[in-house]
């Protein structure tokens, strides 16, 4: 009975649906020194970006000028980005389908999908 109750609570809480987030080391390996193309759901725009190994982020959003910010990975396995005059945004990173990765907020909302990663500064930023 107790097990059924626990299972019910687990299902109700949605924990069973949540994908396992990447660890801090996995995020650093995936992102540091690499380029990515993706779709920023939170902005409704495609983008390409280069994440330098020392924490600089150069991003080109569709229809916008290039912008420079910073990125870091926290001890809580969170990936954070910060652009000037904007608040820092931290999310978990989870692996999706077809080699895609997603930035997911604590409540499960997907804010960003990396469609493809390539080694180095592919877009020459």
């Amino acid at each position, binding site marked *: 009975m107790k097990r059924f109750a626990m299972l019910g609570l687990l299902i109700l809480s949605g924990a069973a649906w949540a994908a396992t987030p990447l660890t801090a080391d996995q995020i650093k390996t995936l992102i540091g020194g690499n380029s990515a193309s993706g779709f920023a759901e939170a902005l409704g725009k495609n983008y390409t970006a280069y994440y330098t190994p020392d924490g600089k982020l150069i991003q080109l959003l569709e229809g916008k000028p290039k912008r420079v910010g910073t990125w870091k990975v926290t001890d809580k396995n969170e990936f954070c980005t910060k652009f000037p005059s904007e608040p820092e945004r931290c999310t978990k990173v989870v692996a999706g389908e077809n080699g895609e990765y997603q930035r997911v907020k604590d*409540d499960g909302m*997907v804010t960003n999908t990396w469609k493809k990663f390539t080694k180095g500064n592919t877009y020459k930023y």
Partner: protein
Amino acid sequence: MICKNLQEKYSPMYHLGALGSGGLAISFFLYLNFLLPHESGIISFDQLWPILSGEPSLRMLWVGLCLAIVLILLATHFVLMVWNTREFSLYKKTEAYALLKNSSAEISLMVVPLTMAMTVNAFFVSGSLLIPGLWDYIEYLFPFAMAAFLVIGFYAMHIMGNYFTRMLLHKGYDFEQNNSLAPMISIFALSMIAVGLAAPVAMSHTREVVAIGFALSSFFATSAALLMLVMLVIGFSTMLTHGIRPAAAPSLWLMIPITTLLGITFMRTTHGLHESFESHVGPADHFVVLMALFSIQIMFGLLGYAVLKKINYFKDYIHGDKCQATTFALVCPGVAFPVFGLFVVKFGLLGNGLIQMWTPAHYLFLLPFLLIQLITLRTLFILVRRLQFTPDPAPVHSPNMQAA
């Protein structure tokens, strides 16, 4: 066809129809705003367009449906607001208006600035949903929005000033005839202005704008909170002494929109002060405040429902021959309760990691609020049809919640 030239038959309380449709639009808008990611202060065309123009999907379906409902209700709001503005200007030339101005019912005029404040919100939401790239210029728009709310605030203060001055100087308050919480419509108006002024606090990245917005919002929110205590005591005292006026019974539910607006003001303010002034209120603190206000809403919701059911209000006033302008007051709590419920789900449950998005638990918590929204939507259209879209509108037995 909307009736025109009602003259003395018009009641300022018809503004509640416009207010209700605007509020319902905002309540459905919240699904888009809370369920879709966005870095802009509120969801905008830029995030919706890729979904609506992309591959057909379930997401496209619900986003499209929700957007259509929001836009239809916003259009209804603007149509009813234009109608009310025209009819109200004609009504102001009548003897009925002069009588109203010299009675306890004068306070019901606060419904006008209340609805005007909703119109500013409706413009803001319409612009965000329909104008591509608007958010790039949003910092330039905040001062104009604040100025609009401030002008409406002055108008509201002018009405309240006249009312209270007359009551205090001439002892005009008739306790026997004001046996309801109807005067709380004034607090509803002040709360609406406060929440409007709090929007730039939450969304602007300019510290000066945040500070000015906070100061102004704080004035109206504090005034509302103080007057709420006064009016609650007076209202319950008269109701317990003389019994409640049946026509004004929905006023028992006015505490629901008031606490919703003050609650959202608190959420917006704490968010803005966190972003711009590095003050920190955590998700657990939000949960405490949200649940306290939600509890007040449930208490007044149950009390109001019990009383309205006992006096057959729903049967007599929505479907029966007692239908009147003040019946629109039913729409306000039907909007405010789901709106606040969505805040509780978003910032109380999801914000504290108690549930995850797009899980059965998430749907389960959203469902009751959606049902109330749909019931309210049905009620709104019944009332709009009965009161304004017929050549011979239902009679206005008592134009205001208060007696003269």
